[in-house]
């Protein structure tokens, strides 16, 4: 498979109140982003367990992005602050293990930021596409 043809698998965890609504707004405004991005709705970014992220990589994801309300705007007051700490540590650990740091990302996208959602996804897909297939966190059994 040449790099040009490579279509990454991207899992996006979006909090219900801000980022999922932001993604909806991107849709309302027809702000396109690659179809490689598939969104999973979670009540809050703090619902995202590091296990979900690793599981996505295991099953063949090439990139995982978590989107939540901006700090201070969490629907549940503090959920995204915990997310921020958890992901800071997890991403740093993945980097320490030699996993490409561009494969994981945490972004704050409000319900009003359809444009930001689309732009973020475009950038993320581009970055992951440039990296190519996820080889360092792959489970060979899940490959064809």
């Amino acid at each position, binding site marked *: 498979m040449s790099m040009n043809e490579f279509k990454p698998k991207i899992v996006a965890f979006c909090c219900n109140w801000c980022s999922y609504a932001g993604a909806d707004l991107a849709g309302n405004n027809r702000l396109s982003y690659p179809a490689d991005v598939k969104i999973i709705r979670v009540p809050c970014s703090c619902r995202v367990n590091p296990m979900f992220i690793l599981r996505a990589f295991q*099953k*063949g994801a090439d990139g995982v992005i978590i989107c939540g309300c901006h700090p201070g705007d969490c629907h549940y007051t503090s959920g995204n602050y915990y997310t921020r700490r958890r992901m800071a540590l997890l991403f740093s650990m993945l980097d320490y293990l030699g996993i490409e740091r561009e494969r994981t990302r945490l972004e704050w996208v409000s319900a009003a930021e359809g444009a930001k959602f689309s732009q973020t996804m475009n950038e993320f897909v581009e970055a992951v596409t440039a990296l190519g297939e996820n080889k360092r966190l792959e*489970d060979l*059994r*899940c490959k*064809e």
Partner: protein
Amino acid sequence: MRKISMDSLSALFEAISGTMPLFLPVDGKEGASYKKWEPGTEYSKALNTNKSAKDFFFPQVENMMAFKTEGKNIEVLDLKEDVGPFAIFGVRACDLASFSILDRVFLSDPVDSFYKARRDNAVIISVACSRPQETCFCSAFSIDAAAPGGDVECVMADGMVYLEAKTEKGEAFLKNLEAVTEASDERAAEAEQAKIRERIEKLPLANLSTDAFGGGKTMEYFNNPLWDELSANCLGCGTCTFVCPTCQCYDIKDYNTGKGVQRFRCWDSCMYSDFTKMAHGNIRNSQKERFRQRFMHKLVYFPENNEGIFGCVGCGRCLAKCPISMNIVKVMKTLGGADNA
């Protein structure tokens, strides 16, 4: 009997590798492990490998079959790989003895075809233990580390390696190696073997006795109150079972790959809480019961069902690796009473 100088071992390995893949102990960060020989690979001088040689026939994880799903259709795929001949060099007497214990499990009816395919294709070159360690107690199980057996038996003495075929397979194997080996006096290794036996007699655990154990004493040992304190601080990890050359329990599990199911087996450990978990639950719910099971199996149940053969070969790995230094020797000494005091 053939011989070759220790310095020319790599020539021997190269010759073997010319006909079949060769595996031998190699030093690594963990200690010694079996690795495939490639030019430049150094044979480890360690007495024994970190993990036992059972992995050759009974690997920790083995894919058995796969189910490929397409919508609601299922296709069954056979994942058995074709096994060709391969050689293992450097197997110690204890590990070699463990193979015959494993054979009793995997080769009796119903025969485990995965195991058998590998067993049939292996040429085993054993090595006598010139420097047995303080943790060794194979003699307790009547294993002679000076004459380990196998297809070909090696004794290393005075810079030479003496190779003697012990089976027809071994003879054919040695014949192929005549170009790199020289003929030797049939009795050249005997002096070293005698020395080895002397050394074994002087080991700290040389007097360990199995007399108190064996078949026929099931209930006596099962109900022994000493299990409580022996097992009290067991962590319930699986280290002893995973480094043990004779532990042969496994679990068969299915893994959902998203495109189907991969069925594999992997080592299990009687130390684990979900070992033998069945529909109704678990039959051994306390660590004491699980701990007891492991040692009862090796010292009582196995000999009872196998003409008095114990399920331990005295390799000493569990003595070296248990996080809390609880091990079969301590169990034997505690339960064996006066015999082992």
